[in-house]
Every structure is written in C-alpha cells, then in structure tokens.
C-alpha cells in the first residue's frame, strides 16, 4: 500500500490541497504511484482513489487520458510518437512505422533488450514541428521535433537521438 510505504510523500502531497478539494491531488499521487510501482496498476488506481475520495473508475480515466502515465509494464524509456491529425498529415504514421521497423517492434511493444517502448500517442502540442516524438525516461520528458516545415524529422535522425540516450547511459 502506498500509504504504508510512502506515507510522508502522500501526506505532503495531500497537505498541498484544501481538505474539501482532495481530488486535486490525483495527479501528483499518480506520479508517486507510478514511480513506486513502476507503472500504474489497477491496485494503485484504487489506492489513489481511496486517498482522495474518488472512484477508481475516475482515476483510471485520468490515467488513460494522459500519455504521462502508463498502465502496463514497459521498457526503460518510452518513445511516444504523436500521430494525431496534424502530425499524421505530415507523415507521422509512416515515420512511426519506419521507426518501429528499424527497432524491430510493433507499436506498443518493447524492444527485446527492454530499452525502448514505442507508442503512438495523441497530441503533444508541437504541430508546427511535425512529425515529432518525445522520450520519457527517469529524467523526465524530452521533445525531439522536426527542424522546420522543410526539414521533417527522418528516421535516421531519430535513431541517432535514441542511440545518444543509450550510449550516454542517461537515466535508467
């Protein structure tokens, strides 16, 4: 139970919000649960819901909405490619397919070495730099965008970016 293992953090997060607005603590508590459990388990959703007095279904709705939360075990780092409408028009789907092929996985899968999980996500708010992707790791979130409308991001560039992460041993 989160409340047992991370009592201090839970209390600190809850203290930030007024007693009658406990539900505001949902997001920070979910981050906490994510770092504690590796990903957000159904059990974690129930615990967080219990802490803030919200049904676990509502908590699950939050987890589902944000690409920042993950509800299943994945690799060390996540490559999240935006395939929403503007990006798709700029070739994001082809880009995603090509990147997947290079990494030898399908969308949503993790590379055999457990290093990368490739996902297609909804809008990442960088339509002007489409196609683009973000990398989520223990350090946070890193955007990798096209240089401009004339210079779309290529798969080779993307692979170089990814190689940088692994060689630098960043995060992990």
């Amino acid at each position: 139970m989160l409340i047992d293992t991370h009592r201090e953090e839970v209390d600190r997060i809850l203290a930030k919000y007024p007693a009658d607005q406990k539900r505001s603590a949902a997001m920070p508590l979910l981050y906490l649960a994510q770092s504690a459990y590796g990903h957000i388990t159904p059990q974690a959703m129930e615990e967080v819901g219990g802490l803030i007095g919200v049904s676990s279904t509502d908590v699950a709705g939050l987890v589902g909405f944000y690409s920042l939360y993950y509800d299943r075990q994945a690799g060390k780092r996540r490559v999240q490619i935006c395939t929403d409408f503007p990006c798709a028009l700029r070739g994001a789907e082809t880009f995603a397919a090509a990147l997947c092929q290079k990494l030898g996985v399908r969308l949503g899968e993790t590379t055999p070495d457990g290093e990368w999980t490739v996902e297609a996500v909804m809008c990442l708010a960088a339509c002007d730099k489409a196609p683009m992707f973000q990398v989520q790791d223990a350090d946070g979130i890193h955007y990798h965008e096209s240089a401009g409308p004339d210079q779309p991001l290529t798969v080779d560039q993307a692979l170089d970016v990814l190689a940088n992460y692994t060689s630098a041993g960043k995060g992990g």
Partner: protein
Amino acid sequence: MADNVTLTIDGARVTVPKGTLIVDAAKRLGNDIPVFCYHPKLQPVGMCRMCLVEVGRVQRDRASGQVIVDENGQPRVVMAPKLETACTTPVEEGMVVIGASGRVKEARDDILEFLLTSHPLDCPVCDKGGECPLQNLTIAHGPGQSRFIFEEKFRLAKQLPLGELIYLDRERCIQCARCIRFQNDIVDDRVLSFYERGRHLEIITCSEPGFDSKFSGNTTDICPVGALTTTDFRFEARPWEMNMAASICPHCPVGCNLTLNTRREARSGGQMVIKRVMPRQNEQVNEIWVCDKGRFGHHYASSSDRLTRPLVRRDGKLLEAAWEEALELAAGQLKAAGAGLAGLAGGRLSNEDLYNFRQVVTGLGGSAALNTRMGGAEQTQQVGVGLGTNFAEMGPGTAILVVASDLEEEAPIWWLRVKQAAERGATLIVANGRPTKTDRAARYVIRYAYGQEVATVLGMLVTGSSEAAEALARAENSVILFGREGLDFAGSTALAQACANLLIATNHYGRPNNGLVGVWPDANTQGAWDMGLPARGQAVLPVGATASWIVAADPVGDGEISAEALRAAGFVVVQELFLTPTAQAADVVLPAASWVEREGTFTNGERRVQRFYPAITMKGRPDFQIAAEIGARAGLSVSSHAAQIMLAIAENVPAYAGLTYQKLTEVVKQWPEVGGRDLYYGGASYTNRQGLGVQVPSAAERGADITAGKLAAPPPPARNGLTLVPVTVLYDRSTTFVRSQVMHPYVPRPYVELNTADAARLDIQDGDTVTVEAAGVRVTLTARVDGRAPEGVALMPADLGPAVPAVAGPATIQKG
C-alpha cells in the same frame, strides 16, 4: 415578459424561457434538430457536433449596448461566420436560427459520415437495430456508400461485459458520454469513465462488480447507438416485432410506469412472454427512468414453477383439482368459520383484489388484515403529500426530510429524484442510525442511536433545537419520507405520527409539495390501507381463528408462524403464484394470476392511483375474481370485473371518490418529449399514452380537521453490547425477485455487517462465518467488516434467506 425570449427558428417564431437551449426551443416548435450527445435530462456537452445550425444574433453597439436597427427599423441580425451547436447555445432575444440550409445539411452529413468511420454497421444483429438514433439519422443524413473500407475500420473485440447486466460493444460507441454523464450526474455512481484518447477512446468500468449501479439499465435506453445493450434482452427479439402493454412496477412504493414488450416464444411453447421491461414516461413519478430491479425483476411472472391448477389436500397430500371443486370446498369451509375466519393479504395485491378480499371476508363475518410490519398509513391518509406534488418541482424553498430509510435500497427512483431536488437547491435532511447513500446529497445529516427515531423527530418540534429543524420549519414547502429501518409496526406507526405532528406544527400539509410519504415495503401498501384493511397484529392470525385465507403473503416462509401452528388454526386457503411454504401448509391452494396477466391498479407512496394492463396469457385467475367466486359460492354478491370494482371503490372509499378506469387513462403532453419518431432526443423510453394516474386527496385536502396525535417519546432503550438492526436491500431473495436468474450475481449471500472496532473486539475478520443470536433468532452467516455500520451496531439485511428479528434489539455475535 422579461424572463422570456422570442427568437426565430427556420422562419417560425417561438417564445421560450430565458436560458433555454436552441435545440429545446426548436423542439417546442416541432422542429427536430438531430442530436446524439445531447439529452434533455443531462447537461449539454456539445461532443458529437450533430446539431450544428446557423445562428444570427442581433447586433448591438459596443459602446452603448443599444440594438442597431437597419433602414426598416428592424434590429440588424448578423449571422455568425461558423456553424454553432444548438445543444450548447442558449437562446437570445431576436436570435435567428437556420437549420434547414444547405450549409447545415452538408455539415451534418459530414459529421454523420465521420461518426460512421469506425462503426461496424452490424445493424442486422444489433439489439438496438430498429430503435437506433444512429440508424435513423444515417438514413436521414448518411451517405449511401461508405467511403471507408471495412478492412481499415478500427476493430475491437465485440461484446465486452460491463458487469452482469450490460454488454459494451466498443466498435459501435460514438463517444457521446451519455452513459458516463447519466452515471455521474443523475445517479451519482461514478463507475463509468472514458479511457485513452482519440480513436482509442473507450468506456471502462473499474468498480467491483463491474458497472456497480442500481440504474445501469437506463444507460441502454439513452445510448444513441447499440454500444450498450442488456444481457437480459440479448438477441431476444427485434424491437418492431414486439407488442406493448402498459404496466406499473410491482417492486416498490414508487410505482414506476412501465411498458412491457411481449412476443411469442418458441421455447415457451409458443406462449406470449415478456421479452423486456422498458420505462414509460411519467414526469410526476419516474420521469423516464426505472431501476434495475424493475427492469430485470419481471421473470417471476413467466417462471416455470408458477401454480396453474388449484390444489386440494387429500389424505394429507396436495393434489391437483378442478377449479369448481376447489372453490366450492374453500367457500364452504370459509363460510362455516364465520367470525373465526381470518383473512390475511399482502401489499403486492392490487386495489381491486384487496377491496374484493375485504368485502368477502367481512361479508362472511370474518376479519381481514394486511400482512405488514410497517405502520403509518393512517398518517399519510391524513397529511400525505398534497395533490400535484412532484419531486421534480422541488428546489430552493423546499425542505425534504428522509428518516429511517435507506432510500436507494428501498425506493431507488425516489432516491434519484430527492437527490436531484437537493442539487436544485432543496434542503435535504437525512436522519438515520447509519450512513446511507442519501447522506451524500444531504445538507444536514442527523445521526441517532437506533431506538431514538421518534425522539429525534419529536426533538425537531422544539423551535430552534437544531439548524435542520429550523430549516424544515421555515421552508416554504416541506416533505417527509419515513421508513421503517430498525422499527416494527408500533415503532414505525409512532415515527409516522411524530413526522405528521412535525408537519402539522409547521403547517406543511394539505398543499402541493408538502406532506408525508411512507417508504412502504410493498408496491401497494398504501392502497391496501386505503381499501380498509387494518394491519395485522403481532401474531399472524388473531386469537380464536378457526379458518384462514391467506393471499399473496408467506408468513411461514418469513418465519413468523410455523406450518403446524397455521394448520392448528383450522382450514387454510392460500391464494398464491408459487407453492410457498405457506401454500404447502394449505388445505386449498388457488393459483393466482400475476400482475402482468390481468388488470388492476396500484396506489403508490405519493397516493397516485395508477392502472396496469394485461400483457400476456393468463395463468391462474386474478385475485379479485377468485375472491368474487368464493363470495358468490358463499352467497355474497361482489363484482368480478376490475373496472366495476373500481366504481365500487370510488363509491365506498371517500378519498377515491369519482375515480374511474377512464380517468386513470388520461394523459397530458409531457416535457421533454421522449419515445417519439425522434428517438435520438429522449432515448428509447416509451411515450405515455395509457394514463398518468390520478393522485387521491389526503383527508386534509378533503376538509377534515387535522390535529396532531398524542405521542410520547419512548424512553431510550437501555443497551449495552451490540444492537442488531434489520435493514432492507434492493436485491433480495423475495418470492417475486429471486426468480430473475439474471440478477443472481447481485443478490448477496446472507451477511451481517459489523463496525471495524466491534469486529476487532469480537476477533471477527471480514468474510468469517459468525453466529448471530437475537430475539429468539439464531442464524449462521458471513460477516462483513467494512466500517459502514456504526460502532455498536450490526446490520442484517432482511429477505436474504434467514429470518431476521422484526425490530432493532440486542444481539450476541460470535465467531463460528
């Protein structure tokens, strides 16, 4: 009028209240603007974009705020550059709305095509097919040819169960969130949510069990596509193949209006059977909703173990007999008993049954009684809610007190309506010995110790005793709903009197939206009292009974009398649907017709008399007819026609004066319109064409002198140790519900609920087997430890199998 706004929609002028949405204003004109996500009972969200219209507004000078007029002296109207959603835009003075233009048509066609991008178009096998808004609007707006190739459509596994009652088909979902909004806003069971985003958006439930709500069936009515369907009706029939019969729900005192869909069925040998139960609109009673007990609890009528032939005891055994023989025998024996004849009837019978029963029993010199553990109907007859009372009209200025009742478990639709009244601004006061779901919506929660119900209400009579009492006294309108939790007959009668005294003292009776409502155990308890049946005493049969005639009651099964004791009191005639333990002890068993096979009327808790109609082929005979036939053989003349009996009731029961079957069928146009051609607007609930019922006046409204009854607060019960409180659960094992197989996963095993502290003291864990001993009852069942019971109190649901004590009292609970 300042509160009204006049606008023009497609050339027609309409005046509507300020704040009305364009879609509703158009509906008043009979102009159907297509919608998917909008529903008149839900807050608008503008998610589906189907209702796009051109909107023109009166131009105003920015500096002065004055309306700019054109050369003709008319206000200048400027059309907005983009189309707007009619479901989220409120009307404005002088607004011009155009829905019949090519631009609008094109936009709607495009939206529809977009909604169909991933729709599987499996209408031929879809249970919604035939009454599906998406299907209808596709015919009106859809392209003849799909531009999206089937192979490229987004596919998911079909038929995902959300709980045991509802199936979700995610491919068909158009993400309008009607179901989620219904669950969140109307019933406050937040058990549905969206998951993921974009094309991957899907409906999920994380509750345990899945879709844990007592109102889940309603989401299938308002779902504008076939995404949510019920397991009970799955592939049973196509909507257009079924017949309709109007009915009234027999499960609780709300009296929800129903439409029964029937069809012949091969596996029932070609008999007409009830295929499904749908809500029928009655804005005064159930609006367009019905709880899952009403929707799925009809199976007892078509149960294969129904009695169909009379049984007569020969050589100690019940054997089938002809009607003539059984009736002759029963009439002869009952007549011979004379003053020793004890009649006992249940509250699930119709007014006609109860009236005839009483006529015959008293005509033979016997005494008839109602089998009930709850009293207080004399008080509701005196100061019951006034004519025209409607929970939907209650808001600011109204106070509602709910006392000794768990409204959601006892009368679910009242819970929903009371909660909505509270949300509109009514002051909801909940008084109970434990937390209930009603607390969530309450402004004041009064917690008493069981046994202090009457004292608590009497305490509210003292001016300024509490904020809640003050709010109730000072409110313009006040309604009190009283239940029977933890109370026996005497206790609930005293509570009703205390509530009546409170209403009389604060002058809240005899007018609309004021007065007393009983949360009765049965659908027609109020009607039974009105028909002149007094409640039975502590004992099932009066002293000196030499023959008994028991109708729609099972005192043996309820553990109130043993079969031997019943048989010792002379000849026993039982009129029943099933061979209940009481029927097994009878000398003559007469098979009764169930409520779906015959005519009749129920009087609901708000004293509204409502009529139900035969829907399927009769098994057995109606109770009123059996009573008449026994009467005829004993030399009494009572009518055996329902409509005629109602005329006799109107003549002999003052409150029912002037009632006729014709009057009960009268309808007025209701708002919002549902069930019409435009299924997309209100959902699949049926339009009410068969009668809204008639509320009968209270004694106060008939000019009677109303005075508060004398009542002393009982001394607080001296208690140490645990108090065992019998409570009501909606899904129980009662005769009329347990035969609905589909609901079995929701009927709990017998349990007793303990407070965490008590459980720790007794060394009892959640799920342990425990033995409960109280008031001569000794049962072994499962313990639940979840903190819902207050300390010192153990809650034990009734009607789950083992007998429970009639009244809250001391108990000992031990492990094992």
